[in-house]
């Protein structure tokens, strides 16, 4: 059984296809491990009974030609799942059972995958440590009382702890890449418009993008093949020619030009991050890539711009949680007091903070100074990337300015928490694809990730570069299973 959970997604699929393993064996293995891993608090909702039932059905008459034949998967609780509670990590949706399925998860089930359950996340995906969830913080398997990152913290933790062979998260400002970096896993944020947002609880619509979180780059390519499709139900979905990512994976990156942006060398960045980055550069050179120093001059404005645009959209997106139609309601004497009671009891502090910021920056008299200016900066940041992509194929940066921190370390200091996203938000603001791959460890033996940022819609290039690096890096998490009961 321990063999099963140690297999990568593609290896599992291989064994299922060869009938060396049944869907039931695999599903049972992951369920058994999850039952013993409750201390990590990765699951908000489990659907194990149904999963076993579906696995049985798959073994009886499943289609083995699917891309994910009989593979059990747990997903972030931001994806709406038909008939299964979907909370977005919030009290306000703690009783919400959708009657519909998100497009992206539907694609997983269409390819034969089986839902294990819904993974913890920061409330409405607002957070960088999975500490804002109404369902409690998630612990990272990389160390006791260590945060898994956020907002897809439950996904990252479950993946690293081998409670699911792969998973999907959502990334608005780094919510896939930062937890991947913190947990020694691979996290890919595809180009905005690649994966449908239909049925994903919205945080900031112009930035939200679903993406794979996997054990290695091949698995990420495989998952991307499944979830990246044009969808008419999402008006921002883009109908571009998608690659055959998994099949086309190549580790030959000779001659590729990789940019190293000087603006990402920030003050106070730990030495270990600096040397991780340097090692990455050396490795790329060794692999035959050409390293080019570049400048992305507006980088320093990305974080402030992000923390205007994202809360602005969120303040509006979250207006629908008002106690009228579904979700949590706290009664009041009249409509207004019902709203006030429902929303003050239903939302946590971080969500309220962002709703207030967002409401403020959209208010008349402040709109031009904040929201409009942030949009202008957004365009300048995008222009920076467009400019450098005339001379480079991809950009290498650290994924985060630090490794994982302890639970509670930053909860009282939102700004220091927000600084975690400093390397990831420019990517969302520009709609570009980026991947975080595990590349080393810090002095505590906590994983560190490198981020590769690609050109829009050129995920293959991104995957090839990470694939070639991964082979040489040969990163191993070597977790001690300390949380298993």
């Amino acid at each position, binding site marked *: 059984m321990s063999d099963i959970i140690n297999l990568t997604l593609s290896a599992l699929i291989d064994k299922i296809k060869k009938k060396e393993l049944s869907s039931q064996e695999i599903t049972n293995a992951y369920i058994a491990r999850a039952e013993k891993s409750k201390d990590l608090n990765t699951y908000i909702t489990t659907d194990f009974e149904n999963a076993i039932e579906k696995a049985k059905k798959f073994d009886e008459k499943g289609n083995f030609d699917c891309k994910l034949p009989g593979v059990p998967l747990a997903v972030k609780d931001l*994806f*709406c799942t038909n008939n299964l509670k*979907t909370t*977005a990590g919030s009290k306000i*949706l703690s009783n*919400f059972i*959708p*009657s*519909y399925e*998100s497009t992206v998860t539907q694609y997983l089930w269409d390819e034969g995958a089986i839902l294990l359950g819904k993974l913890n996340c920061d409330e409405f995906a607002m957070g960088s440590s999975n500490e804002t969830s109404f369902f409690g913080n998630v612990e990272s398997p990389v160390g006791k009382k260590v945060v898994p990152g956020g907002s897809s913290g439950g996904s990252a933790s479950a993946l690293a702890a081998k409670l699911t062979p792969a998973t999907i998260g959502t990334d608005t400002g780094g919510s896939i890449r930062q937890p991947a970096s913190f947990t020694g896993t691979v996290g890919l944020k595809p180009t905005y418009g690649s994966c449908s*947002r*239909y*049925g*994903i*609880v*919205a945080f*900031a*619509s*112009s930035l939200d993008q679903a993406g794979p979180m996997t054990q290695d780059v091949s698995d990420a390519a495989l998952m991307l093949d499944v979830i990246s499709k044009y969808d*008419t*139900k*999402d*008006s*921002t979905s883009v109908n571009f020619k998608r690659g055959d990512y998994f099949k086309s994976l190549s580790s030959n990156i000779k001659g590729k030009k990789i940019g190293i942006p000087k603006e990402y060398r920030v003050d106070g960045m730990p030495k270990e991050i600096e040397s991780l980055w340097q090692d990455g550069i050396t490795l790329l050179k060794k692999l035959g890539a050409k390293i080019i120093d570049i400048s992305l001059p507006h980088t320093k404005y990305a974080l402030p711009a992000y923390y205007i645009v994202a809360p*602005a*959209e969120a*303040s*509006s997106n*979250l*207006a*629908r949680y*008002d106690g*009228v*139609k*579904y979700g949590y309601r706290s009664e009041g004497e009249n*409509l207004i007091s019902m*709203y006030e009671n429902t929303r003050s009891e239903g939302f946590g502090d971080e969500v309220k903070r962002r709703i207030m910021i967002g*409401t403020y920056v*959209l*208010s*008349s008299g402040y*709109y031009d100074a904040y*929201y409009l200016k942030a949009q202008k900066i957004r365009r300048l940041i995008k222009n920076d990337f467009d400019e450098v992509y005339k001379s480079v194929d991809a950009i290498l940066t650290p994924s985060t300015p630090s490794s994982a921190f302890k639970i509670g370390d930053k909860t009282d200091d939102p700004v220091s928490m927000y600084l975690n996203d400093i390397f990831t938000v420019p990517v969302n603001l520009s709609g570009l694809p980026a991947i975080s791959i595990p590349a080393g460890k810090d002095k505590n033996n906590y994983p560190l990730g490198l981020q590769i940022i690609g050109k829009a819609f050129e995920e293959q290039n991104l995957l090839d570069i990470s694939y070639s690096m991964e082979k040489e890096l040969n990163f191993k998490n070597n977790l001690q299973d300390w949380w298993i009961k």
Partner: protein
Amino acid sequence: MSKNKEYLIKRGSSEYEVIIGLEVHAQVLSKSKLFSDSPTNFGAEPNTQVSLVDAAFPGMLPVINEFCIKQAVKTGIGLNAVINKKSIFDRKNYFYADLPQGYQISQYKDPIVGEGSILLDLPDGEKNVGIERLHLEQDAGKSIHDIDPQNTLVDLNRSGVALMEIVSKPDLRSPEEVNLYIKKLRSIMRYLGTCDGNMQEGSLRADVNVSIRKTGDKKLGTRCEIKNVNSIKFMQMAIEYEANRQADILEEGGSIDQETRLFDTKKNETRSMRSKEDAHDYRYFPDPDLLPLELTEDFISKIKKEIPELPDEKKKRFVDKFKLTPYEANILVSDIETSKYFENVIKNSDVKLATNWITGELFALLNDRNLEMSESPISSKNLSTLINLIKDGTISGKIAKTVFEIMANESKDPKSIIDEKGLKQQSDPKEIEKIVDAVIKENPKNVELFKSGKDKLFGFFVGQVMKKTDGKANPKLVNDILKKKLN
């Protein structure tokens, strides 16, 4: 415009001019909603025309209904307006129980249609009223407060239905101009098939902006906005009340507060809903779920080709081709159904008679029974036949009115009515001569008096002949024969 016809509010020695601008909300005629595929049927059971998108479930996204875009562009073209190739959908944020998203998707800074105009026919000439803009937006649901004593109920059937907000310039000067403006706008949209204009069903309603200024002043006064008025009569009453209210305040040395007011149809007065200070901050911003709407030249020119003849052109054609007076033409073109009816009748019938019968008898009948032209109990084909029977002398105009009445009740064709009731006109000169002879024979005294110069008695003889024929004798023949016999 001649001075004496101006609508002015008088207070002592002061005269105030009334300045009116309208924001008309016209429901787009469309099978499905603006951003979802739910149906838009009126009068359906509550909450039966609602999709997950309309009810704003988590993760649901709006997808623009292309047909609604076409309808808006079509309307824009009908209003001689600029079609903006790029427009943007914004979110207008506010909380209300019947607004499931917590925002209305609307267009704020970049509407789909820009400036245009509507031509009004006033008794003393034409007047152009400017259109500021037309934009698309979602309707909200409906809060129902009077069914359950404890709770407010919400019906989301209207939630997400496409509306066109058509904003006029402050060019209107009287309740009568408002009447003509709304009717003309409705007429144009009905011609285009972009809005059914049904005010009872709420397909057309308006926010009315009213301000006043002393005659001769150039500067506009402070305006009040009267929200959501759903009939022309109420708009006129509200304006009348509001203009007088403002005049009273100014006359007493006060000043007008810019505010939103409601018209109370029971008390016939407007009252304050909220002041400018309490005005909502709607926090408009571009909806990130929707990309800017870009229209191609091709898309617009295809729609241009679908534009039918509109009332102004039709009126011109009726005047030029059929020699109708502008007044008659106006009446006939104002409603598309009437114009269609008219054109069907005149395919085979005399234009003059058709005009008279439609604007006379038929209008009176419809008015009497409170019917729309489309509900007319007399088909255009039957009216055409009736007119032809008058024209060829089969029946007299007088008998025709009798036949018309029967047609109105029985929906039969006039020929069978005439046959059944034996109403055919007696046009045989020999038969009439016999009757005339009989009448002369029976009234020797009156014949004598007539011959001695009492010309007025001629009518008496005609009447006697008609009496004997149950009114069926051809009046012209009766006249001719009587004249011959008596002289």
